[in-house]
Each structure stands twice: as C-alpha cells, then as structure tokens.
C-alpha cells in the first residue's frame, strides 16, 4: 500500500490551527526536523504539542515556540529553552508535565486501543492529583489515560513505500509509540526504499501505523551535549 508523498508540503496537508500533534524525539535526537520547519512555514497556531522535550531556542520545537504557534506543551522535561521559560512563566504557554514513562506508555496505549492503565509512577506527588488510586500487590498505583493526536509526526532512519520504518540507535525513543497514536501519522525518513528492501523481521514500525511517508530534504541532526574523551 503506497504511502509515499512527494515532499514535506504534501505530507503536512490538513494540519490546522488548534490541533493536537505528537512529535517524536528525545532532546534533539530523532526529531522530525523537516516537518517542524514546515510547521513554522505553515504558521498554524494554537497547537497542542505532545513531545518529550521542547527543543532548544533555535532548533527543534523551540522554533515553534519562537513563533508562538504552541498553546500547550505536554512533555516530561522542558529545560534548555529560554523562550519556553519566558512564555511559561508569563502564562502565555500551558504546560502539562508527565513522567516520562507514563508519557511513553500513554502514547502506546492510545495507539493500542487501551483507554487507561495503572502505573505506580507519580503516586503521592502532584501528578496524582485528581487521579484514581488503587492498591495492587500492596502498592498504590494511579490510573493514567491514553493519549492520541490529530497528527503524529515521526522521524525514522529508513522507510519503505509501504510506510514500514526503522530507526537508528537512540533516535528511536518516542517515535514508535507516537507513530501508533496518530489519527494520521506522518513519517519523515533519511532514506526511502522500495517495498521489499527492508527485512520483514526487523521493522520497528509496521506500515499499518503510517499514513504518509517522505524523504526529508535535509537533516542537520544537531548535537545538544557534545561529550567526548581524548585519544591516548
């Protein structure tokens, strides 16, 4: 089933003001760079963005914050971003902070038709406020609900024309669960190959979860914390 669209313009058709988007990535690693640039170009506003992080001031989701296109962020950690901080403290930006594991599981649940599940994470903290608590095996757990999005935008290493995706190293992170949880899922890939070229035993995201796929024009793949050791 051919999912290929020609370019990022075609890929993002239908994204409108006020929609909820999921965006894959951890820090600046494995983020859909080309789609984020296109979102800036489109100028869609009042977005709710579900993403583990919020980028940095001049890269990643930080770009959408600069242009004030984001109404609400749903994330686990939003440091390293001055504009974010300013908007958050001034009340321009709503922020919903979620434990990282609960965020990942809630996205998976959304894609897997599990409306809610119990987790111990956050019990006894402000994260648990207003949530049902139940004891299992002598330990309190809180009920967390599924997350879904109008569009999920993920970044993969390679993809085929059927929308099957593989990720590289830790650039996988949130991308597979978000790919499952989008009403429409858009994948931008570094390399797009014909169906049959990827080994069917080793696909990370089966194409059934992906509605549109395109080869990204350019990947900067910026490094956030360059840590190295000296050669002897």
């Amino acid at each position, binding site marked *: 089933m051919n999912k290929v669209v020609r370019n990022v313009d075609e890929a993002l058709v239908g994204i409108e003001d006020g929609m909820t988007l999921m965006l894959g990535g951890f820090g600046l690693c494995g983020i859909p760079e080309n789609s984020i640039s296109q979102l800036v170009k489109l100028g869609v506003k009042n977005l709710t963005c579900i993403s583990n992080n919020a980028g940095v001031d001049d890269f990643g989701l930080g770009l959408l914050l600069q242009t004030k296109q984001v109404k609400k962020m749903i*994330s686990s950690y939003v440091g390293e971003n001055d504009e974010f901080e300013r908007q958050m403290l001034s009340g321009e930006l709503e922020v919903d902070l979620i434990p*990282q594991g609960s*965020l990942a599981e809630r996205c998976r649940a959304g894609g897997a038709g599990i409306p809610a599940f119990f987790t111990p994470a956050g*019990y*006894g903290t402000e994260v648990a406020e207003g949530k049902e608590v139940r004891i299992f095996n002598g330990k309190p757990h809180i009920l967390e609900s599924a997350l879904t999005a109008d569009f999920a935008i993920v970044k993969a290493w390679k993809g085929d024309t059927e929308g099957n995706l593989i*990720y590289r190293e830790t650039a996988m992170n949130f991308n597979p669960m978000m790919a499952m949880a989008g009403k429409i899922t858009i994948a931008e890939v570094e390399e797009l190959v014909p169906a049959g070229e990827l080994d069917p035993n080793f696909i*990370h995201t089966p194409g059934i979860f992906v509605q549109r796929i395109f080869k990204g024009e350019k990947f900067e793949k910026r490094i956030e914390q360059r*840590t*190295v050791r000296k050669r002897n």
Partner: protein
Amino acid sequence: MALDKTGIAKRIAQELQNGWYVNLGIGIPTLVANYVPDGLDVEFQSENGILGMGPFPFEGEEDADLINAGKQTITVKKGAVFFDSATSFAMIRGKHVQLTVLGAMEVSQNGDIANWKIPGKMVKGMGGAMDLVASAENIIVAMMHSNKAGESKILKECTLPLTGVGCVKKVVTELAVIEIKDGKFHLLERAPGVSVEEIVSKTEGDLVVPDFVPEMVI
C-alpha cells in the same frame, strides 16, 4: 575531609553487584560508571532507550543518533541494545533494573524524595525520575548533604514537591553513607576525617548513630 563528587561516585560504585542492570541519573550518578570495581559485570541502562552504554566517544566520533538520557554523546559496548521509550520504561517499571542512582534536592527519613520542582522557580519537569523512583527496589541518592544556603537536605519531612514516596533506601553525600529504615536515617559510614558531630549537626532528620561509625574506604 569531605568527599568531592568523584569520591561520592566512587563510594556508590562499591554498592554495585555482579549481574546488575543499573540506571544512572544525570550529574554525580553518571560518574559512577567510571568506577565499576574490576571483575564486576554490570550493564548501564539509559531511559532514552539503550542498554550497554559505553564511555564518551573519541573526539570526532560523536554520533547525533547516539546519546544518553542527559543528551550527551556516548558509545556502546558489545552486546548493547537500542529500544523505544515504552520498552525502556517497561524495564524500569517491571523491576528489571536492579539499581537506580539519582540526585535529589531533599530526602526525608521515611524515604520520600524531592528532586524535580522548586515552587516559584522555573520547572523543567520530572523526566523519568518519577517512574524510576516509583518502581526501583533499590534506590541510592547521590547528593550534597546541604543545599547552597547551608540548609540540610536530609530531613524529617520534605518541604519541596515530592518525586516519590517511601522509596529511597540509601543516601551517599560528601560526608556520610546513610541508610533509611523504619522511618529513620541510620548513619553507616562517615567520610575520611569527617566527625560524627559534623554529620549530626548537618542532618535535620532523626539520625540513628551507632557507637562505632567506620570511615568510608574509597
């Protein structure tokens, strides 16, 4: 003499046991990986989706796709595995990780921990910390005994918003190794040359002090 950060990391490394999978938080905990005792086989898990982390890459060999949860460039050891964030937290929540080491702003004598939020200040988020502390059976906190204002971080009750309740088993600071048990702190070891009196004076919570408190061997 009080330990430096390296000293704290070295002392915590002594807690490692053969065959353990270990999650190290950002900061001092990350340093623990550098001091694994010879002959011990431990694997480091990072919640962004990697098992079998190696040291930092050589200059020029950084890979933007290969980072740890602190967003630092890293390398992998033979036998490493990459996986998605849901699987990563399945490992953590499912108790497949035997030890979690993380930093804290406050720890209370019933094992509560606060390390993610200071009301009125910028909140960056809890990241994976709430999942880690809610599930790990073995949590060691690595931190300074007092905050920058000189106030004890080892308290009867936490004053900051909690990250988790009743979960911390052990605290290693620049001054002491302290166990949390039966709703109290128990002094196990003191840093070389540090007096019991200094530790007691810098500990706000109830601290049980045995007759003999050995010095750490670093």
